[in-house]
């Protein structure tokens, strides 16, 4: 029996009981729709989560802390920091750079200092960074350029810093304008000082007899783009300049009393943080482990991503399970329909056998009918899922804009592989569901089948 005849016969048989075929297919449609939508929610939520983690910083950059030192934001495991005190110095930087898979390394040497113009000032984290490594550290510019090797007192400014400027005369750094102040940082003449009392008229004389520090004339060369919260609130300066200024600050502090010495990093060749950029995201875990083994504390967004992935996997499994149950019910529906169909057609099966249909022909016919129900239901179910997915996203975006949590355009995502797999899977389920009835049909005795009415 050739395939075209087989297909024609199967379709014809399905069309004989339109209502029953339709209802069975409807079951598959609901099952497919449920499983696709559930999985699409899981996938969409994972993608949204990944996106929001990416916005916290770069996934392929590892932050290294000297052990027991500045525990960064995630220093919950204090126990590890008791014994060895590894120095984060230039030697360490070198050894990180020589690890396989590492693309660039830079120390982060930071102080909380003040930058000001004639009218406005900002208290911000100033970060000394290796200008040659900066190119590779996933900085995105909205204006200007990144630091270069020849730069001296040049700054690259985080996207949010501009909004933190306040009017010097208001003398209140919390009163800054919602929309930031109206200055063009790239054009403005900027000054940088470690003297935090600058501009605070009363405090200056009261605290000490220290003379005001000489500010540095600095020059903004670039503004960073929004969307990376780790970089947004910092100002970047070439590392060597940073070291010089820190040394100057230390000399200045010695002139006055010790009251002003806030920073415990005495040696400018010892860093609180070192950033390690890994070329391939898949190597992050391995590089991080190597650095940990050297005795340093590390942290990367990869950690968070991995642990969130694990918790998302549970959510996805639950969602998928709900879908799977409805698909299972649909499969039982197919089996039921095929069993019924064989009861009705017992006599016909007998006739076909007597006039020369092989067992293979009979089996293929019933398997194909079941698979067609699966395929048809799967295909229509897929269409319904796309519609449902669109609807969910539409409602979600509306709700999100009500609640002011914009940003993600969709929480239901149907990737092409899910679409393909769903249809293949329902056809397979049709085949499996039809297998028992098909075998049953081949086992019927031709004579007995002919005797049934």
């Amino acid at each position, binding site marked *: *029996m050739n395939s075209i*005849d087989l297909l024609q016969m199967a379709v014809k048989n399905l069309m004989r009981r339109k209502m029953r075929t339709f209802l069975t297919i409807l079951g598959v449609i609901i099952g497919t729709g449920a499983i696709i939508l559930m999985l699409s929610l899981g996938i969409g939520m994972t993608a949204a989560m990944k996106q929001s983690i990416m916005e916290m910083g770069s996934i392929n950059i590892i932050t290294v802390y000297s052990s027991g030192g500045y525990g960064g934001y995630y220093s919950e495991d204090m126990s590890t920091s008791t014994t060895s005190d590894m120095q984060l110095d230039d030697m360490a930087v070198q050894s990180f750079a020589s690890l396989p898979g590492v693309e660039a390394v830079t120390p982060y040497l930071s102080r909380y200092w003040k930058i000001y113009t004639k009218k406005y000032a900002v208290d911000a984290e100033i970060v000394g960074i290796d200008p040659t490594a900066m190119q590779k550290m996933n900085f995105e510019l909205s204006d200007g350029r990144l630091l270069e090797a020849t730069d001296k007192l040049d700054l690259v400014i985080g996207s949010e810093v501009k909004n933190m400027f306040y009017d010097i005369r208001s003398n209140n750094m919390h009163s800054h304008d919602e929309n930031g102040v109206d200055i063009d940082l790239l054009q403005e003449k900027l000054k940088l000082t470690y003297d935090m009392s600058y501009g605070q008229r009363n405090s200056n004389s009261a605290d000490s007899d220290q003379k005001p520090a000489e500010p540095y004339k600095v020059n903004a060369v670039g503004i960073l783009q929004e969307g990376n919260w780790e970089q947004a609130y910092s100002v970047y300066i070439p590392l060597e300049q940073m070291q010089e200024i820190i040394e100057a600050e230390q000399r200045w502090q010695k002139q006055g009393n010790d009251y002003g010495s806030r920073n415990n990093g005495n040696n400018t060749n010892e860093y609180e943080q070192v950033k390690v950029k890994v070329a391939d995201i898949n190597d992050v875990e391995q590089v991080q482990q190597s650095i940990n083994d050297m005795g340093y504390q590390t942290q990367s967004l990869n950690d968070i991503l991995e642990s969130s992935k694990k918790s998302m996997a549970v959510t996805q499994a639950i969602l998928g399970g709900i879908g799977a149950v409805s698909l299972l019910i649909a499969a039982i529906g197919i089996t039921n329909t095929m069993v019924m169909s064989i009861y009705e057609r017992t006599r016909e099966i*007998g006739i*076909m056998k*007597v*006039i*020369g249909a*092989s067992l293979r022909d009979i089996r293929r016919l019933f398997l194909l009918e079941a698979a067609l129900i699966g395929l048809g239901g799967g295909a229509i179910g897929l269409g319904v899922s796309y519609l449902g997915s669109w609807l969910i996203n539409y409602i979600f975006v509306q709700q999100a804009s009500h609640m002011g949590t914009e940003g993600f355009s969709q929480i239901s995502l149907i990737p092409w592989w899910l679409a393909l797999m769903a249809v293949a899977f329902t056809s397979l389920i049709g085949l499996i569901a039809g297998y028992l009835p098909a075998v049953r049909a081949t086992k019927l005795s031709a*004579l007995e089948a002919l005797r049934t009415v």
Partner: protein
Amino acid sequence: MDHFIELNDVKKIYRMGREKIIALNNINLHVDRGQFLCLLGTSGSGKSTLLNVMAGLEKPTRGTIKVRQFHIESMSEDQLARFRKKNIGFVFQSYNLMPTLNALENVSLPLIFSGMPVKKREKLAAKLLKAVGLGDRLRHKPQEMSGGQQQRVSIARAFINDPRIIFADEPTGNLDSRTTSEVMDLITGMARSRGQTLILVSHDPEVAAYANTVIHLKDGNVENTIINGEENQ
């Protein structure tokens, strides 16, 4: 001497719980090529059982059935299906047409299972339907035809793959006497013109008159064999 069909010591016992029903007791017979054999006997004498055993639709409890050089009794179901497709045509009392297929499709159904392309098989089927006098009923479904017409369709179907043997179990059992002689003329004429062997079950002496060999069955035994009007034993 080798016969076309040969049955040796064929026994068929049905078990109904603890009860044993001996449908065929001890059958020995042979049929030659081109012969028209009629199995005659009262109801329950074992005619249908014998026919089904000879056609490979039912396995004997004991004994051997040889058709050509093949031993039917030891064939697997798949082998039997292939054997039937090539060698055997069936006509039943209750026609056994597919209710959803029209006359043309019903007649060409055996050829579908042989994998013949649609144009070729429907041409053959149309030719045969014309031969049985249904040239104007090609697209009719079984329930749109009379009993006689349906039986003609089933006769056309039995002959479509040009089988060596035609088995017919009371093909005229549901027909009136005029239609009976029409159908009998048709079957015997077609079988004879193609040199096919015809084995037919009936309890109607009028039908038996067409045959050149008549075997009387009684309680699962061959009571007597009449060849060309003469008793033979």
